[in-house]
């Protein structure tokens, strides 16, 4: 009797070991949930992150931000026509339903992503036509030479044409309130994981796809993913500390030490592709947020420089961010083509010079100004603004802080209703052109849309527009450098810092932090 039970126990034990070798579940939490399973409906971080497990683009970025072949094996501009990019597709790839992945699916997916209701269409503006040249070759025709087209495709997911058409979900979304599209709650990709169940905002379960093309190329240690959003930061950390989850994103900076010093838990950090800065309305003759009548102190570059010098970035880094940030001197993250260490070091704290600049500009007595700040968007956004209030007070600028939820903050920028505001910017294309297009070019219908500074320089605008089709990379880089010089000299923005990403995880989980904050679980190791 005793023997039997020991034997049984032994068998149970071996089967458990065998189980754990085959089946590794990762319980994953972050602050927000994906908004939809439709890969073209939202251009937003958490949504793309979930899609990356189920769907795949032609090209992905690895944890260092470099391109890696995914559904395309190689890609290059066409030898015959500078306006055409040729992508060769991976063969033998199947969707989770067994359908083969072919050029037809790429053409279909790109056209779907270009449709009016897609939120991905702006990334594909330069594409005039996509055509299949054989089963495993696709040609992208652009409206002019586009040297950085591939950078726009890393979050552009491929759908199964047949599945999408069969389920009548070709249209991306129906925001005016008709029906729900099938793809919002169902998914059919080529990715390493397939959807098992999903309750939005509650729990999403994915399991490994047996027919995945990359079975021997990636660790694929994780065989099951249980994803639960946990909104409240303290609760999220508590769940990791108590071992209820294995992996969390968005660890509050103050809790990193606690997590790192807890047995069995690790914290990993990496610079994020996002820079935080303040924008100032310098274009208007008079602004509404200050106490100066008939003049705009922010229009004076000396005032802007003085304000830049008043901000003590090191103190913000050390105290507010607990070392988890990198002080910035320009509004481009270090990954971006055009970023230089010299320019990023240009913002120095110098209260004395700042005061004399204020004196010179005729504002020795100072002035008051309202600062609009979000309180639920960036890491410690409200605390950074608060610290800035204290720092600007040192040079006589009395700042009234108005901190509010992002849903109230961003419309102020969109509608030009703020004169001094915080904004963060990520550069998915890793190229300065993206920064210029949105933040430096004068505000127009479809360009300069986030430039709320009133800065509008026609000569510079022309240079920015010409970047898009300049295929001479050296000349293009020289132009980028020249534009940056102007942005720096005019002090159009007040850079604060580059954000640092923190992932907290159990010791068993092995991964590097990706600058896009999008864990791709096929790269994870588990032991």
């Amino acid at each position: 009797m005793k023997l039997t039970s020991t034997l049984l126990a032994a068998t149970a034990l071996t089967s458990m070991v065998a189980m754990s070798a085959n089946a590794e579940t990762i319980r994953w939490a972050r602050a927000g949930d994906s908004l939809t399973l439709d890969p073209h409906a939202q251009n937003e971080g958490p949504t793309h992150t979930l899609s990356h497990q189920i769907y795949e683009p032609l090209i992905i970025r690895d944890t260092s931000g470099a391109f890696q072949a995914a559904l395309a094996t190689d890609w290059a501009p066409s030898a015959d026509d500078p306006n055409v990019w040729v992508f060769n597709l991976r063969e033998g790839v199947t969707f989770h339903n067994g359908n083969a992945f072919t050029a037809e699916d790429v053409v279909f997916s790109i056209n779907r992503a270009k449709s009016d209701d897609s939120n991905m269409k702006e990334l594909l503006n330069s594409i005039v036509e996509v055509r299949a040249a054989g089963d495993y070759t696709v040609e992208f025709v652009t409206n002019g030479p586009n040297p950085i087209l591939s950078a726009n495709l890393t979050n552009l997911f491929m759908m199964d044409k047949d599945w999408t058409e069969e389920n009548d979900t070709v249209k991306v979304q129906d925001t005016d309130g008709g029906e729900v599209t099938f793809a919002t709650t169902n998914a059919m990709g080529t990715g390493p994981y397939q959807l098992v169940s999903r309750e939005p905002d509650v729990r999403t379960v994915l399991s490994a796809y047996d027919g995945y093309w990359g079975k021997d190329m990636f660790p694929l240690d994780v065989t099951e993913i249980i994803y639960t959003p946990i909104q409240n930061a303290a609760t999220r950390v508590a769940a990791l500390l108590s071992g209820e989850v294995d992996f969390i994103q968005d660890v509050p900076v103050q809790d990193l030490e606690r997590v790192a010093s807890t047995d069995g838990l690790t914290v990993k950090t990496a610079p994020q592709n996002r820079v935080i800065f303040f924008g100032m309305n310098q274009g208007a003759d008079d602004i509404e947020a200050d106490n100066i009548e008939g003049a705009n102190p922010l229009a004076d570059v000396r005032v802007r420089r003085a304000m830049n010098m008043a901000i003590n970035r090191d103190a913000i880094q050390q105290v507010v961010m607990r070392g988890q940030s990198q002080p910035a001197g320009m509004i481009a993250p270090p990954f971006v083509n055009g970023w230089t260490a010299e320019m990023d070091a240009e913002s120095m704290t110098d209260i004395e010079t700042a005061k004399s600049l204020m004196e010179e500009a005729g504002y020795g007595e100072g002035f008051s100004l309202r600062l609009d700040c979000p309180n639920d968007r960036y890491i410690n956004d409200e605390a950074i603004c608060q610290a800035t209030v204290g720092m600007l007070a040192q040079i006589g600028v009395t700042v009234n802080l108005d901190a509010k939820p992002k849903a109230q903050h961003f419309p102020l920028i969109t509608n030009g209703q703020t004169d001094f505001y915080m904004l963060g910017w990520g550069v998915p294309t890793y190229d300065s052109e993206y920064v210029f297009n949105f933040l430096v070019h004068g505000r127009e219908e479809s360009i300069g849309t986030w430039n709320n500074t009133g800065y509008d320089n026609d000569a510079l605008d022309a240079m920015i527009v010409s970047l898009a089709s300049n295929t001479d990379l050296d000349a293009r880089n020289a132009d980028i450098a020249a534009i940056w010089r102007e942005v720096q000299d005019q002090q159009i923005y007040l850079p604060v810092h580059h954000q640092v990403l923190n992932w907290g995880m159990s010791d068993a989980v092995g991964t590097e932090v990706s600058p896009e904050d999008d864990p791709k679980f096929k790269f994870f190791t588990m032991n």
Partner: protein
Amino acid sequence: MERLARVWNSDLGWSFRHSPMALTAGIVVLILVLAALFAPLVAPHDPFNPASLNLMNGFSQPMEPNAFTGDVFLLGTDDQGRDVFSTILYGMRISLFVGFSAVLLAMVLGITLGLIAGYVGGWVETIIMRIADIQLTFPAILVAMLIFGIAKGVTPVEYRDQMAIWVLILAIGLSDWVQFARVVRGATLVEKSKEYVAAAKMIGRRPGIIMLRHILPNVMGPVLVIATISLALAIIAEATLSFLGVGAPPTQPSLGTLIRIGQDYIFSGEWWILFFPAATLLTLALSVNLLGDWLRDALNPRLK
């Protein structure tokens, strides 16, 4: 009338003096209110003046010199380098101001509407009590959120940061008048049928005078009890609104805002940022509640 009040007062005073719990609670509340009132004199720093803050003082431990600046703070500093002790005093000032004003608003509104409803009756009463019902069924926090949203929206953008406190008072006060109105109406209905009111009517007193001079004093007991408990509730409600992101501005934090900020540091070891404001709020609310308890028992002669 005055003599009555004096007797009533001294009776209450006797009961107060002979209840150790009430005495302690009363003294604690008095100390806290005085400390808040004279915060600028008591507090070593002015946490609401951003120019006086040094960010590098942030996260100083209580009674330990700061690693960068060497400054020492009695109860430590918060994430912005603000002296926690001073911030609590100033924050309590805001909490008490919001609490008192909100209760006052609720009381005035509730008493007025309750008196009118009870005395006048008819369709006026139907309308008032129907509105009261609507609001009672609507959770106070939701009503406060609604009012906060609307008030913030209609305030011109340049006044918003100064308006936040007034908006809070309005939001909490307007969400809390129903209790007063119900009690006052009920009591008014009872009093109205008594002889002295009939007598007053007979000698030609105007309804307004009758309500204020004759009926109101007789319903003040329960009103005071509700007011005391409402004060504690209003202070807590302000803290809750702050958690939901609609409280006092972070540059001029109330006790509730301080707790909301402090709870971010619950796991990180900076316990003093949460502990001291929370302990102060607990002491304050607990003492006020105990006073309310005692007041209810003392004003209910049948329980003696």
